[in-house]
């Protein structure tokens, strides 16, 4: 029973991108303002879920041909590398380093290894949510 959801689809096309951008912004700004990998990841998944609801699974996998299970793995890998990174510099595990730099356009910002760890969290969260939703959705 195919319904006419033209309005939903049109709105989604715009909204999904806005949400995605917002998710990235929230993820990157996490260390200084509300946000972080967890929320960012959830929000990204929300955007994809919105796409899934508006279109169907086949179309979305066509647009985003991502293996979410692989995403979980790479996320875990990145995070554990950041955790283990301390070993190579003779400091305790999970020691983070940060530094302030001046970049063109972006200005005075800080580069933080915690963001790498958070990137792992982000990937895992997106991977986990989407794996669950996709497998349940596909089984219909």
């Amino acid at each position, binding site marked *: 029973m195919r319904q006419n959801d033209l309005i939903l689809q049109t709105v989604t096309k715009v909204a999904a991108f806005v949400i995605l951008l917002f998710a990235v912004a929230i993820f990157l700004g996490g260390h200084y303002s509300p946000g972080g990998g967890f929320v960012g990841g*959830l929000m990204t998944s*929300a955007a994809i879920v919105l796409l899934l609801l508006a279109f169907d699974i086949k179309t979305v996998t066509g647009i985003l041909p991502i293996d979410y299970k692989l995403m979980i793995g790479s996320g875990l890998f990145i995070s554990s590398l950041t955790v283990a990174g301390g070993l190579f510099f003779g400091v305790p595990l999970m020691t983070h380093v940060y530094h302030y730099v001046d970049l063109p356009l972006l200005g005075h910002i800080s580069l933080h290894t915690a963001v790498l760890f958070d990137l792992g969290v982000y990937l895992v969260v997106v991977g986990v949510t989407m*794996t669950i939703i996709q497998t349940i959705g596909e089984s219909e």
Partner: protein
Amino acid sequence: MSLLHWAVLSPFLLALIVPILYKLFRQIHTGWFVLILPILLFTYFSRFISLTKQGDIIMERATWIPSLGIHVDFYIDGLGLLFALLITGIGSLVVLYSIFYLSKEKEKLNQFYVFLLLFMGAMLGVVLSDNLIVLYSFWEFTSLSSFLLIGYWNERERSRYGAQKSLLITVLGGLSMLGGIILLTVMGNTFSIRELIAQSGELMDHSLFTPALLLVLLGAFTKSAQFPFHIWLPDAMEAPTPVSAYLHSATMVKAGIYLVARLSPVFAESGLWFWLVSIAGLITLFWGSFSAIKQTDLKGILAFSTISQLGLIMSLLGLGAAALHYESLGENIYLAATVAAVFHLINHATFKGSLFMVAGIIDHETGTRDIRKLGGLMQLMPITFTVAVIGAFSMAGLPPFNGFLSKEMFLASMVNVLELNIFNMETWGGLFPVVAWVASVFTFIYSMIVVLKPFTGKLQLQLLEKKPHEAPIGMLISPIILASLVIVFGIFPNLLSSSIIKPAVAGIQPSLAGPDFQVHIAFWHGFQPEVWMTIGIIAFGILLYKTLPKWQKITQWIPERISLNAFYDNGVRGLERSASFVMKVLMTGSIRTYLLSIFLFFILSLGFTLYWKDAFKLDTGNFARISIYELVLASIIVIGSIAILFARSRLTSIIILGAVGYTISLFFVLLRAPDLALTQLVIETISVSLFLLCFFHLPLMASRKEERMTFKLNNALISIGVGVIVTLIALSAHSNKLFDSISNYYLENAYKEAGGKNVVNVILVDFRGLDTMFEISVLSIAALGIFAMIKLRLTGGKDKS
């Protein structure tokens, strides 16, 4: 992190790369890459020989959990070094052998070498750790990696059975060992073995001493396959032969020996230790050699022979404990038992390693290991035959091989024990040499079976799967090297005595091995009792071997159904049956039952604790004022929750539930927790859509009228109970301020130490980052679990195999 740490870590690191190497270089046997590491490690460790020879100890520390006194302390003394050399040395030869044994076309080499490397690293960790917790971690790692190795051919039922058996038994022992370790720590207030040894005198009088001793020994005995825990070792022979040669002769089973040797300075002065270790060893020696004779599988014989040889070493370590009760060194005949134990440990690794490889060659070239089918291989495989003769004769204790020397020393120690006048030796001590002698006769017989049955007699080609011929040269290198070591150590017994054996003995009995302690192994020492015993062993052995068919039936006198194996099988079956009974009662498949038991447990346990600890406290003094917004939101939540109860359709309940969730996030906004609010909002959105996805699969909502009154009443009681308990806990938690709030610490340090202004995020990624790490791991496992379950159900739950 020192070089030593990297050395122990290197097998694990290489294990990460092996699958990549396997994929990239398909044409090259992965074993060649792996081979480099043990050789490098062996050279690295042999540098330490000159240091330990002078009695030096190398100690390196890396902090792990300083607050609990747990450090990754590695130290090298004579004992640790001996084992490290065995692990890497035999390891190199085994890897070399496996390159020719395992075909690169048919086998999953990437898995095999990953498991083998994990095992090698774990084993190095066991023998070099000073911290007992670190040692225990590595110890269990050896159990796990050997489980994987034994079950390597996991499509075979016997492999899975053997792997499970070894895991169950060794992990059971490992857990009891953990208990022993904890007791030791309670007594000595340290995890460090060195510090425990330093206070061994005070530990003796502690009331926990005996339990700790028993628990630790249980761990060592299960690992080293001592009677009655030996039953896992024969089944572990389902592993590929290189694994058997490595794990079940040279290294893993010796972890128990290592533990006994390592903790000897702590426990050995106790009479209980003397009796338990030496008697367990002797029984194992006897039972292993007796059982070996009835085996028909070549590897089965070798498995039981390993059991018996491990018993021999164990009993020697037990006897060596008597040495501690005599001050003078010169006349201390009991110290010789420890020397013999160490010497035999080395010898056993050489001859048993070569014999396992020979068994593997026979299996590889003929397709069978059944001695009833084999025979007459001597002409076809002359080199293999020579190696087998050297190995088996050494095992039987014949001159001029190294096994002869250590067997003589073993017999001498058993005779010397008669003069011992402590530990009530007068009553039962006479049995020691008798049992040792009888067991040695059986040892002689099974050694002869190993070498004579396959290689002499009639060649029955029709029984063999393949036409036998000599093994390729690569497969022969390792056993030849080991066999030549057998001869070299036999002819020049003192080659190792000052460089390897003496420091190792000093590691086992540090209080005795002073500067004037010397090890000298004599090839010939006159017509002592042990020489007559050896002559007797050979004479009786030949006699009994010749008449083997006539009396072999005696070995079957224990019927299979009352054997230890049957006991184990019944135990496992009983466990499975009771587990499935519990599952049937609890796992009804109805989510209501699950929630019912969870909530009931929640109410009872928390309610009882609240009552018992008298924890309820109400302090209205520091309540915040309730604003009108909060009141409104709270009433929305309450009304929403009640409305869910009366919702007629599932869609309505889900939407109301979502509304309740959104209202909660508004609460967070009010209480100025934007992070939580954000997360709650997104979570609500996603979970509502998840619910919608699941809609399709859910059965129609049961009509509420059908439910009985009592059912409704029970549910109402339980839900009210949960609500009351949670409210009580929340109120008490708010009113009981035992400590200062930790939030100030985070507020002050978030920017100073972690450079972040969002405290919640700083806690998540920095201060408590490890928690987050494990949280995302749990999430990943959950997701993969859901994926696997749903995909399995889609294929009808049918396994491919």
